[in-house]
C-alpha cells in the first residue's frame, strides 16, 4: 500500500467510522459483555450485547484502541444486530477465515468487504481482527 493509498483508505473509510463509531458508549444494562483485548498493544474494548427471545437486539462497545480496531468493531457491531447467536458465530468465523486465507468468499456487506481487503496490511491485521476474534471465541465456547 502506498502512502497515498493509505491516506485515501483512512480519509474515506477508517476515519469517518473512527470519528462517528456505531454505538460507541457504555449502556446502562447488557445481557452479557465480551472483552476484546490485545495485550501486545494495549487496545481494550468491552462489547455489550443485549438479547431478546434468542436474537441479538443491540451491540454497543466502549474502550481504547487504534483507528483500525475501532472502525472494525464499529462495523462489526452494526452487522451483528438482529442476528441469532448462531449466525453471529458464522459471521465472525467467516470474517476471520477470510482475513487468514488467500482464496475466500467475500461478504455481501460493503464495509465488511473493505475490512477484508486489508488482509495484507502489514502489522495491522490483528487490529482489524481484534473484536471479531473476541466474539468468535466467546460464541464458540457458549452453549447456543
Amino acid at each position, binding site marked *: 500500500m*502506498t*502512502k497515498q493509498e*493509505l*491516506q485515501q483508505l*483512512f*480519509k474515506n473509510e477508517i*476515519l469517518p467510522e473512527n470519528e462517528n463509531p456505531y454505538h460507541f458508549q457504555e449502556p446502562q444494562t447488557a445481557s452479557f459483555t465480551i472483552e476484546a483485548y490485545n*495485550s*501486545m*498493544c*494495549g*487496545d*481494550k474494548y468491552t462489547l455489550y450485547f443485549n438479547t431478546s427471545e434468542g436474537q441479538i437486539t443491540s451491540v454497543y462497545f466502549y474502550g*481504547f*484502541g*487504534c*483507528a*483500525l480496531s475501532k472502525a472494525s468493531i464499529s462495523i462489526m457491531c452494526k452487522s451483528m444486530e438482529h442476528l441469532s447467536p448462531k449466525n453471529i458465530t458464522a459471521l465472525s468465523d467467516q470474517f476471520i477465515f477470510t482475513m487468514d486465507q488467500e482464496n475466500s468468499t467475500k461478504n455481501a456487506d460493503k464495509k465488511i468487504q473493505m475490512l477484508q481487503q486489508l488482509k495484507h*496490511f502489514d*502489522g*495491522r491485521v490483528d*487490529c482489524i481482527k481484534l473484536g471479531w476474534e473476541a466474539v468468535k471465541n466467546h460464541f464458540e465456547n457458549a452453549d447456543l
Partner: protein
Amino acid sequence: MIGIVKLKYSFDIAEKLVLLKLNKNSIKKVRSHFPIFEAHPNLVYLDNAATTQRAQSVVTAQSHFDLYENANIHRGIYDLSNQATQKFENDRTEIARFLGSGNANTVAFTQGTTASINIVAQSFLAPRLQAGDNIVTTIMEHHANFIPWQMLAQKYQVELRIVPIDKNGDLDLSQLSNFLDKKTKLLAVSHISNTLGTIHPLDEIIGLAKRKDIPVLVDAAQSACHFEIGVDPLNCDFLTFSGHKMFGPFGIGILQVSEKYLADMMPYNYGGGIIKDVKVEKTSFRNFPHNLDAGTPNVSGVIGLAAALEFISGIGKPDMQSHLNKLTLYALDQLPKVPGIEIIGNPKRRIGIISFNLKNIHPHDIASFLNKDGIALRAGMHCTQPLLNAMGLQATARVSFSIYNNEEEINKLVASLKELMRFWS
C-alpha cells in the same frame, strides 16, 4: 594442522574506528559499516531499543566462523574443534575484559537478557527463598525483569515490593530504604528504562542494597552498548544484556555474576557439557559458568557478539554516549514543535529513548503512517504494562536512537508527525 583464516576485514574496521570521532562526516562513515542502509538508503531507523542494526564486521566474523572454522567446541580431539574452543573461550575473556573484569569465569553465555534474568531467578534465587521473604524491583521494568520475580513471589509466598515512579518518570526512591530489609533476597533494577529512557541512579540504588548486603541484579539491555558496565564497575552481583541491542546477533546474551555469588549459581538445565561425573546414583556438576552450558552453545553467536564489542570499543563508549545525548536533546527540543504532541515523562537524566503520544491518534496509526515516510518506530506498551498502567497510559509511540542516527533524521520525524497531524485533523 589446519590454520585459522585471518579475519582481516574486522580488524581493519576496528583500526579505523579507533580514530573515528562522531561528527557530521563520521556519522556517514559509521553508517557505512551497516549494510542495511545500503539496502534501504532512505530508512530512518528509530527502533534501536528493540534491536540495533547489525554491523558488517559482526556478520563477517560470524559467517567466517560458520564457513571456514566451524566445529563443535570442547572435547573434540582434532585441530578444528580445538581452535573453535580456543576462539570461544578467548571471546569469553575478551567479553569479561569489556565488562571490566579479568575473570572470564564470571561470564556466562545465554540466549539474551530475558534468559539471563530467568536463570538468576531459577538458578540463584529460587533455592534460597522462604515464605515471608521479599524481592524488590521497580514499576519501570521491562516484563523480562518483572514477571520472573512475580512468578517466584507467587510460588514461594514471597512479597514483591515495587519501587514506584514520580510524575516526571523518575523512580521514587523515598521508600527504597524501607523496602530493603533482612528478608530481601534480591533487588532487580534496570539501568535505563526501555520506555522512557530514564537513566536510573544506580550508584544510589545499589549503595542502599549493598549497605544491607542484598544481592543486586542490573538489567543493562538498554545501556550495555554505550555505558561502562560490569558487575565490578557497577558494584552489582548480576548483570544481564543482549547482543542484538548492541550491533550483535540475535539469540546471544550475557549473564555476568560477581565472584561473591559464583558458587551459588546452580545448574538449571540438565544435559551434556555441564557435568563433572555422572553415575546411575548421582551426577556432580562443573562450576559456573560451565554448569549453565548444557547442550551445544551458540558458538557463532558468541563470535558475533565479541565482534560487536570490538566494534563498540573501536568507536569508544564516551563518544557514543555523547552522540546519543546530543540526539536526545535535539529531539526533545524539536518534537514539541509538533502540534498535539505529548512527550511522556521528564526525568532528571534520560538518554536515547523518547516516548510520546499525539492527540487523538493512536500510536499504531502513527507508526503505520510514518512507515510510509520510511520512518521505523515502535508503538504499543513496550513490554512495560505495569509502568504504562501506573502512568495512566494505554500505549505510546517510541523513538530510540543509535550511533548511525543524525539530526536530519529527527527533522524528518518531526516533519512527518506534523504532516500526520494536518492529515488527521
